[in-house]
């Protein structure tokens, strides 16, 4: 039974693949009906499917393909010219065949699809009288109970448990039955004045895959083919023809697992690089560093290659999706009475499998839309001085880490004003919004749910659903939609989609002490702005970006970040784009670009608005990844407090007297602390003491004091001066505090480290009180005298 399942699975996979090819070939055939090569190929496909399905006892399917084969065979022998009407019937029967195969896939039975009508039409075309006895009855009446079971139910006899003789007997029995029924059919055909080239030619690839059946099945095939091979061109190598390259079928789950593992490896690599940097800093000039460096480089190089290699295994040519469009265009142009030609380019461009699966639907909708609304009726085109034949171009190409799918038509183009009026009519936007809309934004209106410009709902489009689907699907893929259009000239739509979903490039941004990762695919640009550049329009913050007005939202408002301290003079705006919309996200600073692996937050925290997941950074910390689509949504409702100027309230408290200035002295030696306070006493400023880095940090964090400067010793227990400085610089709140190193370490390397750690001055012990005083005074910007 397992073997049967296995054969069935292989059959289905093969059949679907063949069908895809078939569609394309048929459309091509209509344009070149004399192309014998093409015709032969199509015939072979029908033939192969017929053979395999009869072997698997799918009688309905066999019946259908058999009649298709008849028609095609006649065409092949030049007895029939395939015109558009015949083609319609053939294409329709292929659709039926697909439906049947889907039924088989889902239920393991080929019942429930009505095909009496189409078969008789096929029969008529091939010269019959159209009076075809439904074979279902005939076929089901004769086969032994076992055979029926084998084809239709899960609990059939287990062939693997039968003895070899039994199998032989069983096969012989089935064979005789088959031949009889075939004979009967042929007799019926002959009666209808037909020559019937009908061999249930079992494709050799099928039985070979089942080890138990193979030895027995092989002679069967031979027996069947030898005496009855009345059709010299009937191609046994049909199955082989489709397998040109050497390939292995791999379960997608395994690839997914592999991808997950690579993801972990990438995180490990990031971590390793970070540690390597730290080590490098600490043990500068040591010999082992060289080796470590090399190893880290190799590991990171190999990891990157490995990642690309695994990504490639998941890649499929986009042609897989494109292939179905010629057929679609053909049907649509007949239905709409338009003349349309589809030009496909770049079908070899590769995309991740999961994306290929998602991209099909949006493309169907876009192309339908282009056919229905874009391309005009031939008469209209002629009147406008265009060729009657409208051209839709579908092309795919790579652009950096993206793949771009571009759909152009030379139709009537989008009329921005008309779009605005229609949207106001349908109450999708207000008049005011319409006034503020650029043409490009107006084009984006076609993606709004409920929007349709079609005067009447046709079979093809006009329900106002399709383009909404496009937007949702493209958003899900983190893609961007770009529309260019000119009235009377045509429309150009670009879908920009990231190559893969699992491991992505991200822009890391900081707000206060928190970091967030924004998928780089959605980042259009970053801009540094000062607070003067932010305007408020109707309670919304906006800025002027070149000729556009960009609405702004502070990432801290979206993620409820407490804003304890104010920002620098400048902020950064990350312009994010998704589908057709744009938004400016204000952040405190840009951290950098990093390769991240998306991890879910787990069941407990899933579905948090605005968060797509989390990633683990090089330092082992967790960073949340923004869900750009959700951010855009939230931005419309979040109450904006963009005012970059923020709460300036606590920082520049008026300094009226010297004691308003506060300086923190950090030194582990009590004597040194005493010397420092003595030296600074004449200034009259307030001094606070800490005996090591940790204590100093705690005092600082407690928020009790607000320091204007710090004097830091380098060598201290628990936490030394460099580490302390590094820690302090991590908090943007304290970043501006001038740090002055006071130490007996005088080496140049020490000084360098001090500077690197963020110290502004470097005083070596011993020092004169005056010198210390002047340095402190300068750094805390004290202007008054004591």
């Amino acid at each position, binding site marked *: 039974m397992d073997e049967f399942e296995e054969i069935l699975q292989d059959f289905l996979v093969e059949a679907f693949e063949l069908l895809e090819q078939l569609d394309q070939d048929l459309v091509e055939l209509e344009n070149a009906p004399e192309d014998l090569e093409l015709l032969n190929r199509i015939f072979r496909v029908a033939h192969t499917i017929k053979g395999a399905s009869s072997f698997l006892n799918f009688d309905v399917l066999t019946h259908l393909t058999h009649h298709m084969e008849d028609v095609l065979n006649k065409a092949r022998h030049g007895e029939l010219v395939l015109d558009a009407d015949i083609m319609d019937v053939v294409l329709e029967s292929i659709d039926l065949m697909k439906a049947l195969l889907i039924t088989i896939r889902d239920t393991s039975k080929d019942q429930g699809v009505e095909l009496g009508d189409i078969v008789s039409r096929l029969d008529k075309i091939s010269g019959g009288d159209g009076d075809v006895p439904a074979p279902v009855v005939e076929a089901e009446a004769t086969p032994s109970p076992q055979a029926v079971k084998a084809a239709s139910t899960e609990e059939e006899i287990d062939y693997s448990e039968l003895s070899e003789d039994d199998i032989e007997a069983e096969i012989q029995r089935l064979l005789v039955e088959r031949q009889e029924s075939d004979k009967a059919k042929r007799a019926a055909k002959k009666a209808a004045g037909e020559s019937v080239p009908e061999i249930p030619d079992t494709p050799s690839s099928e039985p070979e895959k089942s080890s138990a059946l193979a030895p027995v099945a092989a002679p069967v095939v031979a027996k069947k083919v030898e005496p009855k091979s009345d059709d010299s061109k009937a191609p046994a190598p049909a199955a082989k023809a489709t397998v040109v390259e050497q390939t292995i079928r791999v379960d997608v789950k395994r690839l997914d697992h592999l991808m997950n593992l690579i993801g972990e490896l990438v995180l490990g690599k990031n971590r390793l690089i970070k540690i390597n940097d730290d080590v490098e800093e600490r043990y500068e000039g040591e010999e082992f560093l060289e080796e470590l460096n090399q190893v880290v480089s190799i590991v990171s190089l190999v990891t990157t290659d490995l990642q690309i290699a695994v990504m490639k295994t998941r890649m499929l040519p986009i042609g897989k999706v494109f292939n179905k469009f010629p057929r679609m265009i053909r049907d649509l142009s007949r239905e709409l009475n338009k003349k349309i030609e589809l030009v496909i380019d770049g079908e070899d461009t590769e995309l991740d499998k999961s994306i290929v699966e998602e991209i099909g639907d949006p493309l169907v909708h876009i192309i339908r839309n282009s056919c229905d609304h874009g391309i005009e009726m031939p008469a209209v085109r002629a009147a406008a001085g265009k060729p009657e034949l409208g051209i839709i171009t579908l092309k795919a190409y790579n652009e950096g880490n993206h793949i771009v799918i571009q759909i152009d038509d030379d139709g009537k183009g989008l009329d921005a004003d008309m779009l605005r009026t229609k949207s106001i009519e349908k109450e999708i936007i207000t008049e005011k919004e319409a006034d503020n809309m650029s043409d490009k934004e107006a084009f984006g209106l076609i993606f709004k749910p409920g929007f349709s410009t079609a005067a009447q709902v046709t079979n093809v489009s006009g329900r106002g659903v399709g383009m909404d689907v496009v937007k949702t699907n493209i958003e899900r893929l983190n893609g961007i939609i770009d529309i260019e259009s000119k009235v009377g000239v045509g429309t150009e739509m670009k879908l920009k989609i990231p190559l893969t979903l699992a491991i992505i490039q991200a822009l890391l941004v900081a707000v206060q002490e928190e970091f967030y990762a924004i998928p780089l695919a959605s980042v259009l640009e970053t801009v540094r702005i000062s607070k003067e550049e932010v305007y408020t329009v109707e309670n919304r913050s906006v800025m002027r970006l070149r000729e556009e007005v960009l609405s702004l939202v502070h990432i801290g408002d979206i993620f409820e970040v407490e804003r304890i301290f104010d920002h620098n003079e400048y902020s950064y705006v990350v312009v994010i784009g998704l589908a057709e919309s744009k938004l400016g996200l204000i952040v405190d600073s840009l951290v950098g670009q990093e390769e991240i692996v998306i991890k879910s937050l*787990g069941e407990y925290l899933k579905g948090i608005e605005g968060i797509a997941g989390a990633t683990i950074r090089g330092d082992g910390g967790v960073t949340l990844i923004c869900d750009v689509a959700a951010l855009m949504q939230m931005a419309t409702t979040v109450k904006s407090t963009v005012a970059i100027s923020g709460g300036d309230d606590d920082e520049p408290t008026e300094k009226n007297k010297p004691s308003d200035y506060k300086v923190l002295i950090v030194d582990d030696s009590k004597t040194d602390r005493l010397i420092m306070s003595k030296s600074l006493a004449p200034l009259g400023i307030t001094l606070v003491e800490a005996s090591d880095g940790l204590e100093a940090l705690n005092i600082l964090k407690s928020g009790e004091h607000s320091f204007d400067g710090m004097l830091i010793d380098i060598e201290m227990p628990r936490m030394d001066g460099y580490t302390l400085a590094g820690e302090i610089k991590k908090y943007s709140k304290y970043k501006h505090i001038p740090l002055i190193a006071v130490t007996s370490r005088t080496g140049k390397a020490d000084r360098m480290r001090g500077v690197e750690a963020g110290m502004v001055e470097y005083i070596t012990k011993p020092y004169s009180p005056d010198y210390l005083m002047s340095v402190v005074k300068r750094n805390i910007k004290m202007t008054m005298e004591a």
Partner: protein
Amino acid sequence: MSEKLQQIINKQQIQDDPSLTDLDDIVQLVGFVIGDEEYSVPILSIQEIIKPISWTRVPQTPNYVLGVFNLRGSVIPLIDLRMRFGLREQKHTEDTRFIVIKDEDEVAGFVIDRLTEAIRLSKRDIGPAPEAAQTSDTMIEGVGKQKDKILTILKVAKLLERTF
């Protein structure tokens, strides 16, 4: 030294007393303190217990969800049980621990004030939750009676259930 050893052995013997030998009737728990109360969860639901490490805040969550942390490559939610139980937030101390609890596929870390001990209780000594707490959304599985104190046993599934 040997005296101490003897003590431990004695203690173990007490725990191994005959009434507790029938394994089917034994529930093994891990006890911990939150505020002034002692709670416990079944030992088998605990994946591991770690010292506090840094975590990342997650926005739009109730205050008792501290955020997420990285446990050897997995991103795991962190929940402060003090705040979950309506107590005031407290600074982490030397004794603070993260208990990583697992129920089927659900994993989360819980911040507790301090661990007490592993406890073996006979099923006979476990009573139902007090009537006042017997609502459908109670987090109390039952109450264990020990010689000198009682012990609240928490419902693991309920702890791991998202309530916002």
